Every structure is written in C-alpha cells, then in structure tokens.
C-alpha cells in the first residue's frame, strides 16, 4: 500500500482552513469549481475535472471542526482512487495552521499514485494562496 503525505503551513486560522476544506464554496476556490458537497457525516461529495471526464466521488466519514476531515473515495475516473481515504488534519501553529494531508490506500506505488502526490502538492499550494491572498488556482483556471 502506498500513501500521499503532505504537510503545509498556512497563514490563516484553523477555522478558515476548515471552511475551505469542508464546504463546496471553499473547495471551488482552490481545487475545482465543479464541486458539490453535502457537508455532514455520511454526506456525498462530487468533484469534476476536464468537463466531467474525470469525476471524484467521496463520502464524508468524519468531521471535527476545526481539526479533522476524513473522506472515502467511492469512485473516480479509471478507478484510480477507488477505496482510498483522504484525511485532512489541522493544528494551530502560532497565527498559522499546519495542515497535513494523508491520502492512503493506493494498492501500489505506481504512476497514478505518484501523479496524485504531485497534484496534491499543487492544489495544497493553491489552497494556501486562496486563504492567504485570495489567489487560489483551481483546476479550471489552468485551461487556456
């Protein structure tokens, strides 16, 4: 099994970081504008990319504001994320927030997994920018 582990420090309160991760409106600012999320435990999330040629569907497993969010990926284009779990852990660090991402359960350390690591790196920076200066870089912003 392989997992993506990232850690980033964001100059924002845990409450603001949590809102950006736990609501569809927040996610639209840094990941994809095509986001729907029912923000409760057991709720469904759906995130579209490439005009919905790639869609990630998740179920919300845990919500502990403003500390912890956990999802299970139910389906994804090509099945690359199916059955994997995604957890965000937040901890205050002075006037900043340390955000850990753990995306676990990849069956092997293959190229899909390696790509996911790089993409998460990009999008967590986008999240940082979204919260620090309002300049998130969600997926649709790349498309020329």
């Amino acid at each position: 099994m392989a997992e993506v582990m990232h850690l980033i420090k964001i100059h924002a309160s845990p409450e603001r970081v949590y809102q950006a991760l736990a609501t569809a409106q927040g996610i639209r600012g840094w990941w994809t504008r095509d986001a729907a999320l029912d923000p409760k435990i057991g709720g469904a999330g759906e995130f579209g990319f490439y005009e919905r040629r790639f869609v990630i569907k998740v179920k919300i497993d845990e919500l502990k504001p403003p500390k912890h969010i956990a999802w299970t990926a139910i389906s994804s284009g090509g099945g690359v994320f199916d059955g994997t779990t995604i957890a965000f852990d937040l901890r205050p660090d002075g006037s900043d927030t340390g955000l850990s991402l753990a995306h676990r359960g990849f069956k092997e350390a293959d190229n899909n997994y390696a790509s996911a690591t790089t993409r998460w790196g990009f999008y967590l920076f986008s999240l940082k920018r979204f919260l620090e200066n309002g300049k998130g870089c969600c997926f649709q912003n790349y498309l020329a």
Partner: protein
Amino acid sequence: MSCGINHQVGIKSSPEEIYKALTEIEKLAQWWTTDTRGSGAKVGDTLEFWFDGFCQNFNVEELQPGKRVAWKSPKDQGADEWEDTEVTFDLSTDEKQTFIQFRHSGWRESTDFQGHCSMRWAVFLLSLKDVLERGKGRPYPYDLEVHHGELVGEEMNCETKNGTPYGSKKG
C-alpha cells in the same frame, strides 16, 4: 510503505533537455536553488545545493543519458533525515510529453519533515517543468514558501496552453 516520496510530472520537452536540467549545474540552478555548486555530470561527482547557510550534498550514483539520474545523500553532508536516502529521476515519453518519475526513497521513518519535503519536491518539480516549458523556474529563494506566511516567489502559473501545471493528460 510510507517511507518514501513519489511524484510524477509530465513536461512538454525532450528527455535530452530534461536530462541536461538534472545534470548541468547552470540548469539545476534554474529550478532547485540558485546556489548550486559542484558537478552532476559524471558518476562519482558531488553536487552541492545551498540554501543560505545550509548545504545539501548529493553524490551522483547513476547516469543514463535521456533516461535516468540517481543521487545519494552522503553521511553528515546535509539534513540528518536525508542521510543515505536516494533521489532518482526516471524519464519516459509518450507522443505528447516526457514524464519524470521521481522517487526519494530510503527514509528511515515517516515524519512531519517528510510531509514537508513531499510538498517542497512538488514545488521544485513544477519549477523544473516551468523552466523547460516557459524558460523560467522558481528556484530557491524565489520558490513558493511552504512554511512562511508570505509568498516571496513568482505567481503560480494559472494559465497554460499545455493542459495543466502537472501534465498534459487528456488534453
């Protein structure tokens, strides 16, 4: 299986150009740290990557032009956590681009520092991509700061004709 960092990035460039960017000092200085010293041209050479007063050394372990570059971090010549770890870049192509399969392996344990390094490698691999596709990277100290409130670096590239910042997958 947590004790390693794997990335993959797709770049609109040739394996030969990417290989140069991984083995020539002047090119390395365009995407990782502006203060790069030593040599990466031959097996057995030592590369010095300077970040202000801190220096991370790597010995060149393996070179296959256009295909593979492998470095190893020697004892007491950089971050303790990186001691004896290995960094490898494997290159492969399809009709659209060259992929770099990046691995930083041999970590003794999974720590917060590894999570931090995983983010940093994403930043620098995307910087490498920008050098090759746009002629300008974001090497230290112009990179995107992972651990400070203010971003000193260049703007993230939000617009590109080449698909996404991390590859040209699916157009």
